[in-house]
């Protein structure tokens, strides 16, 4: 080999640093913590429940408000609300996650194949997506779940995912359409990769943030819808879930009895879980699109926060820069002092000029 090639000087290796949790957007962090707490409760809640949630006490003294034995009070027939919550969160989270996983799988499958293959398959799959998209989901769910003899949580999750995949599929199809014309796909074909391998190894890894956001959105949809359906009495009422708690509280006239501890905890739990998922979704959006990030606190110059809307403080004077007075000029500006003009002649005592202004 001829030696006309210029050797590249060695670059010191950069260690693969793990991203710190605190470096993620605030919304994503709060959302992740809320969702994380709910997932932990879903896993360990039933073991923490102090009472059997279905235990009843046949007295007239109930419902009882919060006390040291029953931290969240009891229902009209003496069931412990806290225990019902701890047991019920599992079912609700299970429906949400199961529907999310199935629906996201369907979205990726349909979206990527439709976008990548193009032509007749794209036309057909897009038609299917749009058809499912315009189906009125809630009435249809009411009809389907009312018709099914046994509406277990798994069945509910399955029906929800069958109706919940088209949003994600459309977004993923659009992204795939844009990715498949990129050079790296042509380059992978040059390498001799099979179509299957190009999809799995080259296209899908580039869509991970989109798929994650779609997953979170679908989980939120599934949780809200399943709670609503169970509240209407169309879901699984034989097991405890946040939805069935709301159903039984409504059934037991909790509002007329003034038993706020009966219906408020499950309602707030649903609201918090939904908020956590929404925040997580916004956070994922911000990760993928830095323009959405809040600019405040991003730039600190000389200890002061500069907002993008602030005018650029132009006090450009080579002497100031050379003598390290540039940042002091900024400080003077922040105190509402007239900027040091560049008309200051060379050799003038700039430092005293600034000080004099700042004092006066």
């Amino acid at each position, binding site marked *: 080999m001829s030696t006309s090639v210029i050797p590249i000087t060695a670059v010191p290796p950069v260690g693969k640093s793990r991203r710190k949790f605190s470096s993620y957007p605030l919304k994503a962090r709060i959302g992740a913590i809320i969702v994380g707490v709910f997932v932990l409760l879903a896993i360990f809640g039933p073991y923490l429940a102090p009472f059997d949630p279905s235990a009843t006490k046949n007295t007239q003294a109930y419902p009882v408000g919060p006390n040291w034995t029953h931290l969240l009070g009891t229902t009209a027939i003496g069931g412990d609300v806290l225990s019902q919550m701890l047991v019920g969160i599992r079912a609700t989270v299970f429906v949400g996650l199961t529907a999310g996983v199935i629906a996201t799988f369907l979205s990726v499958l349909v979206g990527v194949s439709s976008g990548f293959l193009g032509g007749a398959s794209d036309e057909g799959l897009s038609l299917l997506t749009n058809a499912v998209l315009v189906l009125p989901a809630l009435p249809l769910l009411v009809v389907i779940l009312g018709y099914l003899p046994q509406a277990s949580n798994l069945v509910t999750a399955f029906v929800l995912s069958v109706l919940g995949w088209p949003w994600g599929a459309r977004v993923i199809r659009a992204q795939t359409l844009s990715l498949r014309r990129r*050079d790296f796909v042509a*380059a992978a074909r040059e390498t*001799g990769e099979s179509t299957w391998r190009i999809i799995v190894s080259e296209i899908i890894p580039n869509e991970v943030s989109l798929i994650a956001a779609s997953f979170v959105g679908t989980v939120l949809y599934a949780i809200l819808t399943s709670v609503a359906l169970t509240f209407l009495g169309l879901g699984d009422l034989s097991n405890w879930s946040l939805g069935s708690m709301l159903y039984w509280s409504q059934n037991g006239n909790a509002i007329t009895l003034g038993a706020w501890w009966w219906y408020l905890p499950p309602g707030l739990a649903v609201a918090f879980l939904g908020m956590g998922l929404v925040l997580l979704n916004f956070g994922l959006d911000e990760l993928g699109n830095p323009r959405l990030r809040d600019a405040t606190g991003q730039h600190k110059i000389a200890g002061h926060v500069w907002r993008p809307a602030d005018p650029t403080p132009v006090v450009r004077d080579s002497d100031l820069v050379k003598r390290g007075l540039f940042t002091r000029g900024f400080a003077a500006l922040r105190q509402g002092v007239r900027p040091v003009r560049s008309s200051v002649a060379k050799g003038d005592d700039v430092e005293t000029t600034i000080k004099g202004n700042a004092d006066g």
Partner: protein
Amino acid sequence: MTEQTKTSESAVGDVVLEAVSISRDYYLGRGRSGPVLSAVRDVSLSLYRRGVVAIVGESGSGKSTVARMLAGQETLTSGEVRLDGKVVHLKHRRAFRAYKREVQMVFQDPFASLNSVHTVRHHLERPIKIHRGIQGKQAIEEEMYRLLTLVSMTPPELFLPKYPHELSGGQRQRVAIARAIAASPRVLLADEPISMLDVSIRLDILRLLSDLRETLELAMLYITHDIASARYVADEILVMYAGEIVERGPAEEVTQSPAHPYTQLLVSSAPNPDALGSSLKTGTKIVPGQAGSALSSIVGCRFSPRCPFADEQCRTTRPPIVPTNDGRLVACWHLEQAAPSSVALTTKPRTTRAKKVLEKPD
């Protein structure tokens, strides 16, 4: 041939890859009823072992389409591609892979041609596994080290775990070149390999390609819009305008005494400090205009709307590509005005196929 990077002509080997009057049409309307864009029309070229052929032309001239057709990424509307004299059929996956073992392409934009989610190791490992049949982790690792050393990315162990965004444009293009030669091809199609790079590293990449051509005995197609860089690396230059070849010949002759008005325009628009301010030989100004239209409805010379010598004949009849007395082929009706020193030997159209312009009596 003054440049030391060029091969001496006797060293140029046999024809490896050959395009025989290949064309590519695009239908602009829905279905096949709308206007037809003939992006490439009737292009023939031969790539020789250790030889470099350059295609020069402006954006939209069809030069990249030629490369994509040769690479098998684009189907041919008509014509055929021959590898070692055998017509290439790429209908089946196995045939395509076998073809990729011989013919590889380097893309224009190194920021787009590497997948940002994969490391350098992944980009090199895949072609080695697919094409080379090298067994064992150690052997693959050694091969990747060899490839990175070939493209001067040393020490290799430093670059293998890097992601594309951690590399500079020049380093990325080196990785892209290493990936292309990982399949140990005999033909390398370089589609504007330096146009997206900083000026300061363009020469390095050109030198690298020239070195690889020498050491690996590659047949190379070099596509560019910069006729000066084509002169630097190529043995033969093909000038394309709106999908057609307007002039072809040995690199020195085409760049030093361009015959076709469009070639003259290209040469005069290259920032050459030795010839500042020079325009057409005749001093005539080129009519400023849009890039050439390649609509198939255009009869006559496609350069005629911008050409200072165009007359009725140019607008109605397509000029044939004919050999001239100074060893090249030009498609122009008014050669005697455009380039008085070049005289067309015949007015009969001559097939350009398998024409060995590199063979000169010496």
